[in-house]
């Protein structure tokens, strides 16, 4: 039988019992809709998180004191073998090294006149703004102190400036950081939040001054960015050797941006899959629906099937017919589901532009294929039943 005729007959059958077909289609549509919406959501979250982390650039290596990575808290705890500013300086001369950023973090009171604000204080070097791709809105970032003890200069985050200075000019003004007098030389552009951490509520001061402010000798982290032309592993190895040379042992830990993103990506991929799987539950129930309706249909149309066989249809053709019905039901359901979810996502994207929604056509095609698969699997049982009917008995049931 020609495929066109298969389709014609199948369509006619489904149209004849419109209500029934419609409801079955609806069930699949809901399932597919759920899967698409949830998977897109998961993909969106993944994108969002990755983007947030990538904002620091991709060719970056982070060094923390201590060997055991206690969940990234390595830098927070004290250490007997601290990472020193001198270590950071020594890394500058490595080939391909672009920027080196020593980091110490704490919090303290920032005062201007009568206004006081408790914020995060980051002690760092002149390379930070370039390395982390933070924009300086006004003035400039901290200068390179060239080995000598740095001047008491500070750079304010956007929010700190607003809170302490309002609309007043801040450049050149004197503030107190942890009781000490600093001159403001720069204001950072607004950056927003990153995973709960307010990037605008920070004051940047030279790292050596921060170390004495917080009364510690060791850095919490050293970031190294490097130029293209060398693999991440190779660069990491260079850094490692240089530091071992200085410390005698490997009492620090290295992580490349790639590694960090990879492990995060893996987690997020699993998460997306899990979320999509949740939607799949509805799809399973939808598939049960197809099976039930199709089997009932076969039962009702026994006489019809007997007739078809009597006029010469082979088992195969009968099976194809019923399989085709199931697949068609599922496909139409899939299309409806995709359409509805597309509309919903579109509406959502318009309403909340900030949401990282990306309608990946690949996912949509996948969803369509999924619905076809569902139809195929659900249709097998009823189709085989239909094909297996004894024509004589089937005709007698009229």
């Amino acid at each position, binding site marked *: 039988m020609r495929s066109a005729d298969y389709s014609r007959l199948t369509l006619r059958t489904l149209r004849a019992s419109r*209500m*029934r077909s419609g*409801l*079955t289609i*609806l*069930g699949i549509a*809901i*399932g597919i809709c*759920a899967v698409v919406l*949830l998977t897109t959501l998961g993909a969106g979250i993944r994108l969002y998180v990755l983007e947030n982390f990538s904002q620091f650039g991709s060719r970056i290596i982070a060094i923390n*004191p*201590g*060997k*055991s990575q*206690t*969940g990234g808290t390595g830098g*927070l*705890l*004290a*250490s*007997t*073998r601290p990472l020193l500013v001198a270590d950071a300086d020594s890394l500058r001369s490595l080939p391909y090294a672009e920027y080196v950023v020593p980091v*110490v*973090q*704490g*919090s*303290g*009171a920032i005062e201007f006149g009568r206004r006081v*604000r*408790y914020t*995060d*204080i980051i002690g760092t070097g002149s390379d930070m703004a370039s390395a982390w791709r933070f924009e300086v809105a006004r003035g400039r970032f901290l200068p390179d102190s060239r080995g000598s003890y740095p001047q008491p200069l500070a750079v304010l985050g956007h929010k700190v400036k607003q*809170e302490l200075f309002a609309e007043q000019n801040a450049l050149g003004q004197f503030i107190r*950081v*942890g*009781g000490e007098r600093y001159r403001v030389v720069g204001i950072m552009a607004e950056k927003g939040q990153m995973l*709960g951490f*307010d990037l605008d*509520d920070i004051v940047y001061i030279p790292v050596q001054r921060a170390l004495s*402010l*917080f*009364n*510690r*000798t060791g850095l*919490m982290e050293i970031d190294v960015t490097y130029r293209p032309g060398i693999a991440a592993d190779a660069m990491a190895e260079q850094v490692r050797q240089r530091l071992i040379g200085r410390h005698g042992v490997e*009492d620090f830990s290295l992580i490349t941006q790639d590694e960090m993103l990879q492990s995060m990506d893996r987690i997020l991929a699993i998460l997306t899959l899990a979320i999509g799987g*949740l*939607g799949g*539950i*509805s799809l*399973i*129930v*939808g598939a*049960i*629906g197809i099976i*039930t*309706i199709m*089997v*009932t249909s076969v039962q*009702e149309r026994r006489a019809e099937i007997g007739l078809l066989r009597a006029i010469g249809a082979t088992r195969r053709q009968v099976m194809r017919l019923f399989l085709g019905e199931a697949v068609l039901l599922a496909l139409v359901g899939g299309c409806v589901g995709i359409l509805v979810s597309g509309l919903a996502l579109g509406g959502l994207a318009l309403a909340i532009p900030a949401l990282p929604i990306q309608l990946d056509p690949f996912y949509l095609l996948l969803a369509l294929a999924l619905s076809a698969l569902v139809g195929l699997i659900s249709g097998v049982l009823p189709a085989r039943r239909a094909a297996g009917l004894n024509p004589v008995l089937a005709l007698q049931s009229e």
Partner: protein
Amino acid sequence: MRTADLLRFNGRLLTGQWFRTLMTLLATAVGVAAVLLLTGMGEGARRFVLNEFNLLGNDVLIMLPGRKETSGGIPPLTGEGTRDLTLGDAEAVLHLPGVRNVAPLVVGLTQVEAEGRNREMMVVGTSPAFFTIRNIDTHQGQPLPQLPLDRAEPVCVIGPKVQQTLFDQQQVLGRWLRTGDRRCRIIGVLDSRGVSLGIDMSESVIIPVASAQQLFNTEGLFRLFIQVQHPGLIETLKPRVLDLIQARHQGERDITLITQDSLLGVFDDILQLLTLAVGAIAAISLVVAGILIMNITLISVSQRTSEIGLLKALGASEREVHRLFLSEALLMALLGSATGVVIGYGLLLLGHWLWPEFPVSVPLWALLGAITLAAAVALIFAWLPARKAARLPPVLALKGLTDAQR
């Protein structure tokens, strides 16, 4: 019609069409089981986290150096403060009325060496009060001795994993190990109660706080635990502690106080929301099951047209016919829910048996919600088809015709 008769009437129908009934049951069961499974896991996770926090005890205040203006977010768990928390501060707090005990904390990482082996481990400098406040026991030897806070003694208590890693499970009491450039004598081994709020005590070495300060060459405390006489005093004590430190820190209020409740609150909300969301998504499948019920009921109505005509001839009113078909759908939904409940709980228990740390606890609202939803969905989706049945003109129905087929 009496309920018992109704059940019998419908029951015979359902068993007659057993495949159809079975599949519809299955559809509902999958939905209900999914809801139970997912909410069970979510709630279990929440309970697990809460339990962990509860070990802290609700009579404890945690003091952190540093303070952030943007409150409501994560407390400054990271980083330093400009002014150190000192042992002097700790002593002063201890003398506040209402305070039962304080435990200072200095934490760091260093090389720990013994028997020719060395590993980088966490070293915790604290006082014996820490053991009582944090409910940590030693199963060999004793906890840290009572000392004035500023006295350093070369003694230590080690976690069970340390005993394993450095000493191969041999007897350790009385032996020496080296932390960084200092030696200390082992006087106790911790109970194997592993993780507590993120800090894995099992592979750590606990020494007196003054020794730790010397070891890491730092004066500032990482944390200060404050235990109050009883939980009710916490609120009154908070401002007093803040005032005290402010006075001692030259007018700077550069500390943060956390209670177990505040930490709990954040996690609790997040996890509850998660559980709800996950349960809701699973519940969508119940709607799909409802659609199947509607479909089946429609088919049932069209197949039993002459029966409907007969029932009406015998005196069944429209309402009764309606109720008949509705109850059929409801019965299927309830049976399906029951099956789903069995499957759901079964899977959860299986998971718990395979992984005992896997907490399982289905919240009551989820259980009742799932069953109610299944029943409600069945009623809603079967309503219209049942009405169609009820409205069939008896004369036509007896002929086996519905309106449309005239």
